[in-house]
């Protein structure tokens, strides 16, 4: 079931300085992580990304995902070090037609004589902010026993 991403995650997608990565897996569960600068949030709430290499591991894994319902994850790291994890399902591969052509023409304007294999569409199903400070606060709230006890010993400031 698709979800709407938070305003913070949407802002992270819009920020040109955000580092974006896509994690996928093959049919045996072997994970693969790749940085994908083309990951973008569409107006319809789906995430799209442009695959330039037909035989890449990610492209094969995305195919496996849409065939067998294997989820994929997108990780975002903003310039101010907030991070977001989005998990979703691959719902469509654009490989031909008018919409594909629009992407292709944009790709061809870039330097490097790039080709375009596929525009993949991902439906977000789960989102979590993974920024360390936020996760630490959540952890301490939900799992107060998850800590080393030496952290609880009052620090003698005179010795420091």
């Amino acid at each position, binding site marked *: 079931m698709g979800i709407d991403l938070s305003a913070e995650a949407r802002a992270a997608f819009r920020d040109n300085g955000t580092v974006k990565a896509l994690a996928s897996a093959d049919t045996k569960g072997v994970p693969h992580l790749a940085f994908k600068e083309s990951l973008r949030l569409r107006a319809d709430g789906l995430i799209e990304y442009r695959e330039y290499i037909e035989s890449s591991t990610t492209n094969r894994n995305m195919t496996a995902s849409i065939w067998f319902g294997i989820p994929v994850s997108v990780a975002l790291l903003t310039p101010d070090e907030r991070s977001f994890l989005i998990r979703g399902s691959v719902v469509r591969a654009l490989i031909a037609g008018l919409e594909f052509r629009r992407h*292709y023409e944009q790709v061809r304007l870039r330097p490097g004589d790039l080709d375009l294999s596929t525009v993949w569409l991902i439906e977000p199903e789960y989102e979590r902010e993974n920024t360390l400070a936020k996760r630490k606060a959540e952890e301490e709230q939900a799992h107060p026993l998850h800590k080393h006890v030496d952290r609880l010993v009052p620090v003698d400031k005179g010795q420091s």
Partner: protein
Amino acid sequence: MSIKERAVTAHGRGSGDIGRVVRLQGAERRAESRWREEELGLGQVLAKYPDISPFVIIKADVQRRGVIYTQAALGEVDPDRHMTKVRSDYCEKNDLAPVSLMLRDGTTIFTEGFMAGRHREPYVVDAASGRIVLTDEGRVIEEVSYWEKPDYYDKFTSRGTPMWQVVSARPQRLTIHPNQYCDFWKRKGQGCKFCVMAEIYNSTDKPPLLHVEDIIETVAEAVKEPGRNVNIFLTGGSLLGGDALLEEELDLYLKILTGISALFGGRKFPSQLISTAFSREQLRRLYDQTGLATYTADIEVLNKDLFMWICPGKASTFGYDGWMERLYQAVDIFGPGNVNTGIVAGVELARPKGFASEDEAIASDIAEAEKLARRGIAVVSCVWRALKGSVFQRQKPPSLEYYIRLAKGLDNIRRTHGISVDMDNYRRCGNHPDTDLGRI
């Protein structure tokens, strides 16, 4: 919900009433009433083969059973955007129905109009809320889209020929059929028994041979379209004549391919020719004088005795072993992975001379395919439809499970022998369930 879950569990809670079905050619025939009880249905095959792409399974079944369209589905056709016309050696269509379909994962389905099988009900393409869906017995199976029309399609050559009649299109391929007839059909009883080339030709007023200038001009126009084409493909009926056997056919292809090669500065370009099996010397000329990259000569059926029965013209002219030998010679010239051979999967079960069971047929097919693979040649399979006008028109094609077992077997052979699927993959051709499986 995944398409597998939908297909397996959605019985009785489908999309509601299917819209009024538009009945055109073939759809009026009543299918055999008990076929659903006699073989595994789509949902059962999806459940039994969880390691096979459900999209490929759906494709195989749709191509096997055919499709018809509801009025609502036809209402979604935009003739300015979608392909509705096609002229090829196997299809002549100029109405406003979509030429064919595409699934969400990019898998193509070849329906080529309103083809519906005699023995099994076709799928129904319906539409609701702007969504076009494939349905069976009122249940939504999967979303589909219509093939989009290329830029050149409504243009004319300088000779005034509509370009769509010269070069037909798949979503990513230009398809050229220079000879729309076949010399084997000129000899009584020599045509391939599954083939409708003669039937299509005789029911239209199209010329047997296309003008080479029209072809070059159309291709030159078509290749301007950004991001459309990844392959230029030629095939057609056999031309046996000339100074030596097949020289007429070779000369025609040489002229066309030389002209197209010039568009790419004489370099090799993504291309495939399916021709009658040329000799080593002819293949050498083809490779050396043109930019053709890959070569196919279709054996059609992987059994010597059945080849003689089903393809009598090919058999009497070349022989089964002779055809194979020419494939081996093609590998010497084009290289491993750049030569394959196609089969019309299922004709080896045709009555009365075919295999008695699907198990026997598959075992034989796989053994022969293994033999070819050891020489660097892949076998690719097409789904057989017993088309009206063919000698086999009353035959019953095999079950869906047969097609999935065969596709899996051929894909495994290619992987085992390290033969690339690139020359005939899902984008370059898209008519082979087995090569679709090579995507992962």
